[in-house]
């Protein structure tokens, strides 16, 4: 049974967590052959060749893009990139491993010694990154009707492994680290970041120790956590389980446990290898990699703006709230959209006002429409040009806010520019001339003495009826706030005798 009891945990024991994250790289071809990695909807064993099937006589050839992506990831995680790196063979027999060994990296990975900053309870925490290395994914086994079937499509897909130091002190920190890491990978464009599809996977090492103890407790390795929520829940369960064992005077078994999502527990897993001696040795089919400093600098220069920088820029340059900056940053496509809107708004004088308006319209109305139509932000049918056009119409007071929402709804579906819709529908400019409005207001007041009397006797709600009448007379083309303001001023004047 899952027990969410980490509050009491916090006092007596310290939790220590390190994560091993695997991310499939979004290269077009596989790690060591030219097969396409775009096998998501393909029939089994259709994206294969003699190389990724491990036929006799074949040889691997390194995918340069995969190395570039690994280095970019490492740079984004503040790692150092040694000049010399190599691949190794990791030997273990299993039917999902075509060659009987996995080409991975052992003692000379592409990068080491980085860190990632996360914010937790208002504090910045530095989580060490031990290494980022490059390897190949295995085939997929499907077990059904008493048979095990092998789908080799996934075999040989480039995979990076990001190993953290045991620097996390709570399941929540582990989740925050994982979320931050995912955000960075997606920003770099090196991973789709889809945990539920397995393109981003996470194993956790977790131990507990009495607070103040220096040495680490015995750890367990937790697998099969397919979402951020699962990660946090599994680690909360496991921390609690370990603490209960220790409190009862027991000892922790070093073992691999799987998260059983439906039951909300971790359970011991049978080891899939006979023994854990992988007999690593240098891959003789691949010459060592010499990573030139010039290439590293070229890749560093190619790094896109990363999430932390974007968050900061939104608050500092545009005066957005921390919360809005967060939302725009977390969903990269929204932030990209916002940046395009701002780029197209270069002629707008008040940058911050435009930014706030753009952020508001984007995060409320556009997001509402995306949800309603079940469309991902990256595929938003409303072009940034259209939103800019809408904001311009509003700035020029060509339409009212209410009209703008209706226009936006239409533009989202039809793809037209808002101004085209405004013209087509014959929407007249709002009446913004106070004198013209005042004339109408006086007429409405004079035509409704009873309502006015109600208002003046304290039933202030009665004013709404008057507003409605005024809007009716202006056929909706008066700005509601201006009408309110002028009407109240009129009503609050001493009644004329």
């Amino acid at each position, binding site marked *: 049974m899952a027990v969410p009891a980490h509050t009491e945990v916090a006092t007596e024991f310290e939790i220590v967590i390190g994560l091993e994250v695997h991310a499939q790289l979004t290269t077009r071809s596989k790690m060591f052959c030219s097969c396409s990695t775009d096998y998501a909807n393909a029939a089994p064993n259709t994206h294969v060749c*003699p190389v990724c*099937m*491990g*036929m*006799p*006589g*074949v*040889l*691997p*050839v*390194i995918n340069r893009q995969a190395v570039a992506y690994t280095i970019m990831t490492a740079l984004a995680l503040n790692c150092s990139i040694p000049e010399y790196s190599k691949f190794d*063979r990791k*030997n273990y*027999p299993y*039917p999902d491993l*075509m*060659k*009987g*060994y996995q080409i991975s990296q052992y003692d000379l990975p592409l990068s080491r010694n980085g860190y990632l900053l996360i914010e937790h309870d208002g504090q910045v925490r530095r989580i060490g990154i031990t290494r980022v290395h490059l390897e190949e994914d295995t085939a997929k086994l499907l077990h059904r009707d008493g048979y*095990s079937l*092998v789908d080799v499509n996934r075999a040989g897909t480039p995979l990076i492994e990001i190993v953290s130091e045991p620097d996390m002190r709570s399941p929540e920190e582990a989740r925050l680290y994982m979320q931050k890491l995912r955000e960075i990978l997606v920003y770099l464009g090196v991973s789709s970041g889809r945990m539920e599809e397995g393109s981003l996977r996470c194993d956790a090492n977790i131990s507990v120790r009495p607070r103040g103890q220096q040495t680490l407790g015995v750890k367990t390795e937790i697998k099969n956590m397919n979402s951020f929520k699962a990660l946090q829940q599994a680690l909360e369960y496991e921390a609690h389980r370990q603490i209960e064992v220790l409190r009862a005077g027991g000892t922790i078994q070093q073992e691999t446990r799987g998260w059983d999502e439906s039951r909300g527990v971790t359970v011991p897993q049978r080891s899939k290898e006979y023994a854990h*001696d992988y*007999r*690593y*040795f240098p891959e*003789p*089919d*691949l*010459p060592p990699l010499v990573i030139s400093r010039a290439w590293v600098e070229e890749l560093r220069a190619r790094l896109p703006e990363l999430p932390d920088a974007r968050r900061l820029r939104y608050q500092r340059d545009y005066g957005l709230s921390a919360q809005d900056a967060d939302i725009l940053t977390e969903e990269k496509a929204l932030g990209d959209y916002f940046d395009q809107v701002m780029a197209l708004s270069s002629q707008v004088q008040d940058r911050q006002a435009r930014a706030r308006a753009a952020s508001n319209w984007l995060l409320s109305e556009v997001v509402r429409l995306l949800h309603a139509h079940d469309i991902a932000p990256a595929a938003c049918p409303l072009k940034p040009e259209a939103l800019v056009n809408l904001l311009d119409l509003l700035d020029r007071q060509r339409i009212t806010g209410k009209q703008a929402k209706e226009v936006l709804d239409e533009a989202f579906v039809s793809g037209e520019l808002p101004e085209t819709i405004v013209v087509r529908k014959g929407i007249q400019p709002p009446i913004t001339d106070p004198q013209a409005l005042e004339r109408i207001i006086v007429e409405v007041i004079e035509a409704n003495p009873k309502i006015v009397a109600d208002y003046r006797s304290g039933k202030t709600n009665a004013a709404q009826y008057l507003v409605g009448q005024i809007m009716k007379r202006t056929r909706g083309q008066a700005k509601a706030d201006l009408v309110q303001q002028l009407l109240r001023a009129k009503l609050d004047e001493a009644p004329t005798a």
Partner: protein
Amino acid sequence: MSALHELTLSDAATLLRQRQISSVELTRAFLERIEALDGRIRAFTLVTADLALQQAQEADQRLQRGEQVTPLTGIPLAIKDVICTKDIPTTCSSRMLEHFRPPFNATVMERLQAAGAVMLGKTNMDEFAMGSSTEHSAFFPTHNPWDLERTPGGSSGGSAAAVAAGMAPGALGSDTGGSIRQPAALCNVVGLKPTYGRVSRFGLVAFASSLDQIGPFARTARDAALLLQAIAGPDPRDSTCSATPVPDYTAELTGEIRGLRIGVPVEYWEAPGMDPGVARVGQEAVNRLRELGAEIREVSLPHTRYGVAAYYIIAPAEASANLARYDGVKYGYSYRDTSDMWEALDKTRQYGFGPEVKRRIMLGTYVLSAGYYDAYYKQAQKVRALIAQDFERAFEQCDVLVSPASPTVAFKLGEKLSDPYQMYLNDVFTIPANLAGICGISIPSGFSEGLPVGLQILGNAFAEATILRVADAFQRVTDYHTQRPAL
């Protein structure tokens, strides 16, 4: 004109180009020769007669049109059965791959086909190229054409025997620790192991990836040069294949070696187990090279005596991983009489591999295991570096090094089968070149007790042209290579 099967590859090529003979005639002559002799020699695991005649016809059309004619157009060749041939069985002389037909061609096969060569068939070998006598073939041993009671050496014994018996004018083999040079020596033919990275390994079924190289067998250095010319050069499918430009090898065959510095490594000549008859023949060969104007110098390769030990750690280590893919799931032999996955895997390997292959897999697994890696594998890599350093120093003083290719002449079938260590010692002169990645050639240099003795000429990395020049110069003044076994 001598019988067609007696022709050297170069002479046959000339006659083909002059259209005095056709490739079909030539191919038929070798197929008939195989038909007549191979029942006794057993060099071939497969004779692809129909394919050969079809390829010969195509070659004749090329020759007729005079288009895309290369020195190999229309030349029939035998191919060691460790080289992948598309849709044609590639067995590695193993039960494991007895019915395996690769869906692709090795790079060398593509190059031979592009050159217009004809494939006669696939030749027998020690299983997965592990052995020095071809007795470890899972199918049958190959017999030495010079004495059918003896082995042709190995592992490329089938290719060597085929050329020696006139069943092919040339052949391809592979050399991991001497598997081309030793059988060439024992069968009185020329066998060349190129520099590591000179010839693409793509499609060569791996034994020990850091040591394996494909190379040619032929009767003359000139023929070997023509074959190497066709298969050498960079290959985007093999990352260990070098971009170093390929010279025109036959243009270097000037016959001139005056002033060339030839090193005689003392450790080789004084090795225990060196047959006195072999040493005498070797010494005469050195004298002959001196007469040709070469400068003979003694050199030292001090770490030679550790070569065999280091080799039998590194090669099995790599083999243990390379052969892990044979699990009965994807191709090859598969034990099916169980529903348990692990039992199927174990039994597939138990029945699919022969004893020598299993011995090496176990050796390799052991030396890579936790707790033993440093003492064995790492230590062997250090020895490997020292051996490479020995050669670097030697090549500062010499252009080539010479020694017998094998310490003995061909041994009797069964003689060393029960003592693997004695078998391993047969490669004592050839192994260091593989460890260092340099090139070497074995050429006929005389006879001891009526059996051939090969002279090994080692050259620095990518110095194939130099060793071929020495070999050719020697063959211009000797006739050992023209002598044929009585069959």
